[in-house]
Structures are given as structure tokens and as C-alpha cells.
């Protein structure tokens, strides 16, 4: 389990645009670097970040090796109803992690 930090408001007004900031620990090894012996270090990156809001997809990011280590992705969504934001990262070597944050919308 990689450490993930999610910054999102706990409460919002209906219709308000909220910002979600995500940060997850991952080396994002590009697959273009060599080790000291000249051997290629195999690629190991997070390839996808998805956000579902009460089960409906509201955001998706396709990430490539040019995304910096410990990927930081910020996006927005409209606060529609109280519920759960589910964030899922997937990548090479079977990397898969889901984090959830609850939001109360008034």
C-alpha cells in the first residue's frame, strides 16, 4: 500500500465546484534510465487515476513516464450530493490502490 494524501473539502454547497488534490508515493520509474552497469531499469509507473463520485466516473487521468515521481494530480468536480469520492490508481506490476473520501453537501 503506497502512502496517499488527498486534500478535498469535507463539506460543500450543492452546485459548488470543489478542488481535489491527490498525492501518492510512487517512483514512476520511466523505463528510459540505465543503472550503473548500463542495464535498462524497467518501467514501473502509475498509468491511470480515476475518480468516481457515488459510483459515477467524474475524472480520469492517463499518466505517462513524464509525470514526476510521487504523482500529484489536481482536478475539480461539482458537489452534487452527499456521498463518497472514490480515487483509484492503477499501474505497472499490478499496482492498484483505492482511497475514499466522504463529502457532505448541503
Amino acid at each position, binding site marked *: 500500500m503506497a*502512502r496517499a494524501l488527498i486534500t478535498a473539502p469535507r463539506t460543500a454547497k450543492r452546485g459548488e465546484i470543489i478542488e481535489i488534490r491527490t498525492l*501518492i508515493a510512487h517512483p514512476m520509474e520511466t523505463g528510459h534510465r540505465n543503472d550503473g552497469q548500463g542495464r535498462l531499469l524497467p518501467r514501473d509507473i502509475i498509468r491511470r487515476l480515476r475518480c468516481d463520485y457515488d459510483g459515477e466516473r467524474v475524472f480520469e487521468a492517463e499518466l505517462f513516464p513524464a509525470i514526476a515521481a*510521487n504523482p500529484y494530480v489536481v482536478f475539480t468536480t461539482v458537489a452534487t450530493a452527499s456521498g463518497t469520492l472514490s480515487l483509484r490508481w492503477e499501474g505497472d506490476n499490478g499496482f492498484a490502490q483505492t482511497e475514499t473520501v466522504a463529502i457532505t453537501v448541503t
Partner: protein
Amino acid sequence: MRRVAGAASLAFAVGLCGAAPAVDGPRSGAADMSAELQAMQRDDGANPGMLWVADGEALWRRPAGSRQRSCASCHGDATRSMRGVAARYPAYDAASRRPIDLRGRIEACRTRAQGQAPSRPESAEALALEAYVAHQSRGLPLAPPADPRLAPARARGEALFRQRIGQLDLSCAQCHEQHAGGRLGGSRIPQGHPNGYPLYRLEWQSLGSLQRRLRNCMTGVRAEPHDWGAPALIELELYLAQRARGLNVEAPAVRP
């Protein structure tokens, strides 16, 4: 002009730009960074170092070692018990009768009080705990202890700071005192203070310790770096803390 001058003009640039204007008191490396990096450091949701702090917080509470004790079982709530601690390190360790840095202190606790095996230098766990503990002093001024038993080691640290080393025959003082504020390549030369450590260095793509940075510098001037935990490194850390006294702890800082 699109292209930045290459390495060939390194010495020229350093000579041309000369020394920084005199400032009152020490100046944090944060002031020499771009606005974007300063913003990254300030924002706990964007600062990659906070990932290690979060790991450290979890480790603090986890029973470990042959004694199966957690840090919390002795030290309680770190936000209270560890507040101000990092600002007072390196300190004098009565048990080993020599100066000890924060990492060494945590390591002593891990091995003696918890019964854990010694950790490798720069291991993820060691860095996470150091980041978590140092973070509890964020915003507090560095306050190296006035313990007279530290004086000889601190003096040796200053001598090391001023000693020319390596194939490039440079001392710390030449870059970080005489040429602080000037430019090396595209970057401003900072005064070289330890107040941000452990910090996330973009060059490392990882969080790392002050000792890692000191060893980097030594390699940078083509000198054989001291071993991890060597007395010379602790003495340098001791002198650097004194030299930076009054600067606020920024752990975990971000640096290019």
C-alpha cells in the same frame, strides 16, 4: 536568448556574480528557490515530503522490535512530546559520550528501547521517522544547545567547513559563504543551512537526510565522501546548526 550558458561558463558565472549582498542573520535556502518551489513546500497537500511524514506518523504508533514497543508507548503524542526536539539537535549523548544527530537518536531508541535491528542509512523507515519528528519542530527556530561538552566537536566541524577538499579543492565556505547568492549553473547558491532537513530534493526524487546532502557536496567537489554516520559528518552538522541558529525549522522542506 533561449539557451542557458553551459557548464563551461560555470567558473566565469561564479566569479562574475560574486558574493551575495550582506544580510542580517542567516538566510534559508527557501529564499533562493523559485516561487513555484516555495509554494510546493508551503502546501502540505502538494509537498511530497509530507508522504514520509505520514508514514512516520504510522510508524510512531506501531509496536516493533523484540520488545514490541511503539515510540508512542514511551513518548506519547508526538505533537506534544517531540515539539522543539529537532530544533535542539545535534545534541550531546551521555550514553555514548559524543554528539549525536536526530537520526542517531532515533536509531538509539529503535535498537535499545525497541530491540530492533539497526536500520540502513537512508532507509524508508528511518527517513519517515526522522521526517515525522523533525516536522514537529516546523516553524520553531533552530536552538542548538549551549552544552560545553559539544564545543570541541563544534570547533572541529567549523574547521571541516573551511577545509579545502577534493579534486576541485573547494571548501564549504568558498561556495556557501563567499559565493552564497551567486550562481552555479542556473541555480542560486544557498548559504547551506540545515533547517529544512530531512527534505524532498527534486534532484533525488525522494526525501533525504542532511548527511546525504553533505556527502553529495563532497562527491560534487570530487572528494571521497565520509561514511554514513561518521564523526566528521556529525561535527559538520553540529557546526551547521550553530551557524543557522535562529532560522526556522522547515522540515520537510522542498529543494531543487
